[in-house]
């Protein structure tokens, strides 16, 4: 009897627990599985382009990049960003629980069901959705994309997105209403602040996607909703009203992780906290005003207005970078794996950010839009940036979540391989884009001379795959042969390190006094003062 009861209890704990830590861990595992699946699609795409179109048919290729992009955005980066918030925001603000635990659990199941709906398109006779992760009308209407793959995609994306809105509501309420005594808004840790602005963008921006997809669904079934050119423009305006905030939803939480990691491993207080918070809020506000820079080449909206708001982003972004560098200034640095990934984020995201300023200029965008230059740009932000920030967070917080340290030497191997693979894969795309290679093509004429760089990129993607395998091996080795972490292995600053690893069901047995955004650092400094 026991043999059945134990796994059954483990399963119900994982799948039906209302503990925010279990929900978040399960969500991270689900997102990681989707990451592996989406990564496999990317490897297939890279094989196709290295072999110059010899691996899959054009229609299949369209399905591959549609599902790759949709998976990575809707099922990996956005959910994992919010899931890390679900885990750590209650801990960082000293709360015993997340606000709305059952709602958060519902969000997990919406992610699982939505993702499975999207992927089940591959099992239908017409194949999976093939109208790109934007699913833009009229290509996605019932005439140009018949079949149930597209239907399942619409349903799945809506479900996963609805779950993300619910999660954002839970995290936002926790940060605003469940803070421990003494934890004022301006003492919330950097990561919690990035999650607050992230959730604000989710709550304000994501409903536009539900609306766009709802209209698209109605158009497919009843017609007369998204009519002609106006319908196409309306759909994209709605989509990008979601689509630009989502870009920063895939960015801010990782900025927060990098901020925590830099401060901890510089052994000093995060620099410029209040300026950073103001910059985040300005960034989030501006993010709601820039959407049509994705539509410069339509020529039907005011390009200059959107160029203005987009270029203005360099002010808050510049402040964030200033604070990061100033945190290292006069710090005592410890080059852990988490710290290396944070540095990787700083350097590589900068490439993505600076090329973003270039694309925000319409005369340049007219020449580069829809080309591989754009593909390189957003992979430098989302993969070379956010994914590196995520790994910084994983190496930093894995000991807290599991009670076990990850291996540093395997971690550093993972880091070196991933830096190499990322830059070899994505940097040549800038060159190909400027030379005129359009995105989303399954083949290209040999006379273009693009095959050499494409082969190089594909080799790079294999190195990325290898680095992910090293990471998985690291997790397995570390969980098998455990090196116990203790409460605070890093000498960190924030409340999640003031409890056991992993934390108990209700997070804390006792809380230290909270007098700043770095309460544990305050304690250490007070002790040192006494000793002196």
């Amino acid at each position, binding site marked *: 009897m026991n043999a059945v009861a134990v796994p059954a209890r483990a399963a119900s704990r994982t799948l039906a627990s209302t503990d925010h830590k279990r929900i978040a861990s399960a969500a991270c595992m689900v997102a990681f599985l989707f990451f592996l699946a989406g990564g496999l699609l990317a490897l297939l795409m890279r094989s196709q382009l290295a072999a110059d179109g010899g691996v899959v048919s054009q229609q299949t290729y369209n399905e591959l990049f549609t599902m790759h992009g949709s998976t990575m955005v809707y099922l990996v980066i956005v959910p994992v960003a919010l899931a890390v918030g679900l885990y750590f925001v209650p801990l960082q603000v000293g709360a015993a629980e997340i606000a709305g635990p059952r709602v958060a659990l519902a969000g997990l199941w919406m992610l699982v069901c939505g993702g499975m709906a999207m992927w089940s398109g591959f099992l239908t006779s017409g194949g999976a959705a093939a109208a790109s992760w934007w699913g833009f009308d009229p290509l996605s209407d019932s005439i140009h994309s018949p079949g149930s793959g597209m239907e399942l995609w619409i349903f799945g994306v809506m479900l996963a997105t609805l779950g993300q809105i619910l999660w954002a509501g839970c995290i936002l309420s926790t940060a605003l209403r469940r803070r421990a005594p003494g934890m004022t808004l301006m003492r919330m840790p950097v990561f919690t602040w990035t999650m607050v602005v992230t959730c604000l963008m989710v709550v304000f921006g994501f409903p536009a996607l539900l609306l766009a997809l709802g209209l698209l669904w109605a158009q497919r079934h009843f017609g007369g909703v998204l009519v002609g050119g106006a319908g196409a423009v309306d759909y994209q305006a709605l989509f990008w009203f979601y689509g630009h905030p989502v870009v920063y939803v895939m960015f801010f939480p990782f900025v927060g992780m990098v901020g925590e990691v830099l401060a901890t491993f510089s052994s000093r207080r995060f620099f*410029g906290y209040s300026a950073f918070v103001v910059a985040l809020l300005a960034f989030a506000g501006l993010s709601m005003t820039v959407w049509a820079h994705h539509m410069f*080449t339509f020529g039907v909206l005011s390009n200059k207005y959107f160029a203005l708001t987009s270029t203005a982003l360099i002010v808050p972004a510049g402040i964030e970078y200033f604070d990061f560098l100033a945190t*290292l200034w*006069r710090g005592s*640095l410890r080059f852990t794996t988490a710290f290396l990934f944070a540095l990787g984020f700083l350097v590589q995201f900068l490439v993505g950010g600076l090329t973003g300023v270039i694309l925000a200029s319409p005369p340049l965008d007219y020449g580069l839009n829809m080309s591989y230059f754009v593909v390189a740009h957003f992979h430098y932000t989302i993969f070379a940036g956010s994914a590196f920030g995520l790994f910084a967070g994983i190496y930093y917080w894995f000991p807290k979540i599991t009670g076990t340290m990850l291996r540093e030497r395997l971690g550093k191997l993972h880091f070196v391989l991933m830096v190499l693979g990322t830059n070899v894969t994505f940097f040549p795309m800038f060159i190909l884009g400027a*030379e005129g290679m359009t*995105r989303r093509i399954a083949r290209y*004429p040999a006379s273009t001379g693009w095959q050499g760089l494409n082969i190089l990129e594909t080799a790079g993607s294999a190195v990325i795959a290898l680095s992910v395998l090293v990471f998985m091996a690291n997790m397995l080795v570390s969980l098998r042969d455990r090196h116990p972490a203790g409460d605070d292995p890093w000498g960190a600053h924030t409340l999640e390190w003031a409890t056991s690893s992993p934390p108990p069901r209700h997070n804390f047995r006792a809380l230290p006094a909270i007098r700043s955004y770095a309460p544990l650092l305050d304690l250490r400094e007070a002790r040192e003062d006494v000793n002196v």
Partner: protein
Amino acid sequence: MGNTLHAYEHVQDVYLPIAVGVFVVVVGTLLVLLARGGRRKVPGGRSQALVLEAVYAGALALVAAFLLWVTFTAETPIDRTAAHPGFRIRVIAAQWSWRFVYPDGVSVADVDTWHPTPAYVPTGTEVEFAGSSEDVIHGFWVPELHYQRQLVPGYTTRFDLLFQKPGYYGGECSVLCGEDHSEMHFALEAVSLQRFRGWLAREASRQELAS
């Protein structure tokens, strides 16, 4: 005069050196901080400098203003269409073909091909294109001129292009438009106005004979 090539190169000549410069300065600063911070045993330093950050934010705003000034002055002429263009050509995109229609009925069509038949255009004068799509959104992209516009069904998209140098200009559909998106190429052959008129007259009589 709407010279897209010139506008692109002008803006790029300002933006690219600034971007490279910022990258070098940030990475250089980072390396110095890492070298010094790796040796330091006791951390120190202040954790706030609001006045400095406010001045820095002001400087960033000035940089943004300068970039926008460069962008706007370059964009205005290329967004404008000439009142009296040297020539008007209709471009009709469809899954998966391009059709170029000239005022006197001459047309050039490229269907699903990597080896398009060039449509002729005159050099040295603005050519107005009136683009439209028959089904989904397509993208009219001439990489050598650094210019593209999306052709949205139901809209007529007007834009001017200037071909300064004679020669072959390849073009592609830049917006995903379905299964054969990769095959949707077109080509423009820029020739002197005189040769262009000759080609147009020959095509007119040839196409009349054919019909």
